[in-house]
């Protein structure tokens, strides 16, 4: 078919021609993508080369400043006006490797540039706002705390969480209260992670956590997080609050979290309240076994032996652990017997854990 006949064919069948045109546009677009990928690589290689050279210079001088072989002014003199944000990024990465005095020196080196980050707190992209918070809280003094606390109410959950984690690292109970009040905003996050974040503030956060655990107006999930955080903190003062929660709550997750706390900090006078949950769901029963192993009395020994036969392997596992921890002689008897789970008892006795 000659060129003109082909053309005639396409004119007669415009749909077909459109199809080919669309195809051509797509292929050209894809070719453009391939060219863009190549150009992007060339540009990135060049940029990386440039920044690596620059950062090598900054790093060498920063080390000199930290060892007092150079002054901060000598380092700042290496930072071009247009590279200031990049310099902050460099310090952010550098600071993460340091602690103590050296870490504080890096904060001082960043101080003249930090105000440049403030406009980014209003950036459209949540990722940029989150990054700004990270920079301010990692390198910044307490003076930026108000801005960061305000970011707890940022519409983006990412920004809000980055702010919360940054504040938690500050180890100040003032911030703890602010975070706790907004804990419902992190409803999607894993409770154990939130608990760990709160516990990282340190013992000073415990009073606020106890209050949250006791407060029935808080949602059960927040109270679970508070209980888990108190457990991580090993907060013995929360035993009474936990005991009270045990009596009032019907929420399974809160019950499990509270039993977990009591396994850590509970007292023997609370055992009676704990035994009331021996007929709960398997997850509750297994937690009860753990608590009884820690703070139970001689009269719980038989309970643990019975739980070894529990239909749920999880309960049997925790009962075996509890028997091992409470040095219950029945564990050795079970190990020598022909009990279907005798091997579990043997494993406990030889390995000390399941």
């Amino acid at each position: 078919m000659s060129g003109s006949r082909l053309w005639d064919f396409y004119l007669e069948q415009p749909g077909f021609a459109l199809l080919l045109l669309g195809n051509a546009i797509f292929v050209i677009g894809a070719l453009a993508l391939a060219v863009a990928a190549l150009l992007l690589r060339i540009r990135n290689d060049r940029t990386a080369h440039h920044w690596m050279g620059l950062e090598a210079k900054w790093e060498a001088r920063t080390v000199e400043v930290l060892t007092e072989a150079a002054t901060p002014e000598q380092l700042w003199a290496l930072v071009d006006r247009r590279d200031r944000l990049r310099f902050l990024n460099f310090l952010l990465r550098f600071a993460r490797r340091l602690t103590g005095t050296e870490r504080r020196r890096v904060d001082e080196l960043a101080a003249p540039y930090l105000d440049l980050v403030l406009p980014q707190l209003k950036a459209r992209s949540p990722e940029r706002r989150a990054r700004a918070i990270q920079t301010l809280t990692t390198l910044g003094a307490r003076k930026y705390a108000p801005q960061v606390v305000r970011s707890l109410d940022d519409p983006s959950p990412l920004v809000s969480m980055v702010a919360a984690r940054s504040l938690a690292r500050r180890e100040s109970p003032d911030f703890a209260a602010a975070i706790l009040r907004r804990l419902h905003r992190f409803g999607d996050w894993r409770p154990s992670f939130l608990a760990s974040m709160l516990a990282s503030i340190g013992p000073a956060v415990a009073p606020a956590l106890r209050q949250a655990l006791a407060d029935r107006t808080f949602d059960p999930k927040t109270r679970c997080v508070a209980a888990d955080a108190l457990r991580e903190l090993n907060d013995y003062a929360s035993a009474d609050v936990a005991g009270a929660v045990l009596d009032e709550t019907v929420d399974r997750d809160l019950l499990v979290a509270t039993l977990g706390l009591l396994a850590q900090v509970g007292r023997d006078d609370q055992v009676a309240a704990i035994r009331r949950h021996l007929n709960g769901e398997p997850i509750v029963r297994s937690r009860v076994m753990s608590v009884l192993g820690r703070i139970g009395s001689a009269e719980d020994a038989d309970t643990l032996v019975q739980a070894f036969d529990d239909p749920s392997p999880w309960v049997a596992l925790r009962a075996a652990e509890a028997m091992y921890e409470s040095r219950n002689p029945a564990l050795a008897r079970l190990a020598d017997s022909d009990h279907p789970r005798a091997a579990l008892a043997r494993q406990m006795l030889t390995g000390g854990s399941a």
Partner: protein
Amino acid sequence: MIYQFVLRLLDGFNVIVLTYFVVLNIGYFITGLFAFRSLRRYVRRLRTLDIEDLLGSAGMPPITLVAPAFNEEPTCVESTRSLLTLKYGDFEILFVNDGSKDGTLARMIESFDLEPTFRLPTGSIATKTVRGIYRSRSHPKLWVLDKENGGKADTLNAGLNYCRTPLFCGMDADSLLEREALTRIVRPFVEDARTVAAGGIIRIVNGCTVNEGTVTNVTLPAEMVPRLQVLEYLRAFLAGRMGWHEMEATLIISGAFGVFRRDLVVEAGGYATDTVGEDMELVVRLHRLCREKKIPYTIGFVPDPVAWTECPSTLKVLGRQRDRWQRGLIETLWRHRVMLFNPKYGRVGMLAYPYFVFLEMLAPLVEMFGYLTFLAAWILGRLSAPFALAFFGLSIGLGIGLSFTAVALEEVGFRRYPRRKDLYTLIWVAVVENFGYRQLTMWWRLRGTINVFKKGHTWGRMDRKGFGPAAKPPA
């Protein structure tokens, strides 16, 4: 009269085939667009993440890595060593030997100082008999289960029965996970408590330098067959799965690297042992379970946690692998056909499922049909040059375009191949693969479609070279 009818029929078929290709490629294109959007956002988000900070957090959930193994003697020690060096707070490894006929178990016992022990099963999914349980004296995190041969799904189920952590990671025993891979793949579970499963990206280790279980230098393989697969993997993961993730309709999590909530998988009945596509089948079943029981959930794909795996380096082995994949796809889609165009299953039922049925499952049939009608038209003298141009233009031009898109996505996102030469090669391979390789792939998939009615459900045979010198780049 009949002749005229046949000719018209042929023309009609040609139009149908053509239309199918248009729709298919529009589907790919839309997925690619979604992937681009998702990837850009993800890369920006990564900048706000401090992995060391996450690693230091006590709130990261404990994980059990379930590594099923069958005849993995050449790679089992190195890949297990690699797992032991993972940077993650609380994890244990369950290496499950599925009655290997080679020296897999003996090598494990010798290399990791294993001793027989006991471990209480917490699940009761029916599996072949577990013959022995071992724990390493030198690495207490490492446990080895030795069981009778029952196939990969059965082996994963055995591991699941002994798993005690809220999450488990299903993987291949010969995969190498990057050090931070677990921390990265667990993020969705931490950030969104509704997450029930997340998949990571699989990359090809052929050609790379591996040092003590860690990939230290990433280069393209020297051989053509693995090279072609590098491109295919980029297309499947970065353009395909990233796009479906953005549309919240992920249907596949690779069996080589995925993390799941243990309780839900147990509730769903574990991995199906009567299909070769147990990884996809499980994900589809989880969708069904959560939708039918109205459990709030999300299943996603995370593009930066990497599992490196050795891919077939001969066409024969590759053909067998693709045959299995196609059978797995068909078996899964047939089993859960109730989801097709069923609004009860949301985007999965209305969007992802029809896409996989009509544009993935049927693609080899239609493409082969297209070639046949093309041939018939040529024999009968009905072959029009415009049609030929349109057909090849679509078939090859769009194929190249889609591969370029995947290469661009890799460049925008991760740039894991640092040598510029490798980028040029990928672009070149994107063109070359359309002339012969793509048709061959279609043939293997067509064979898989036919074999779906007769094949069993055993392990796919893979001739491993190991991660030693064979995997190093050429001098």
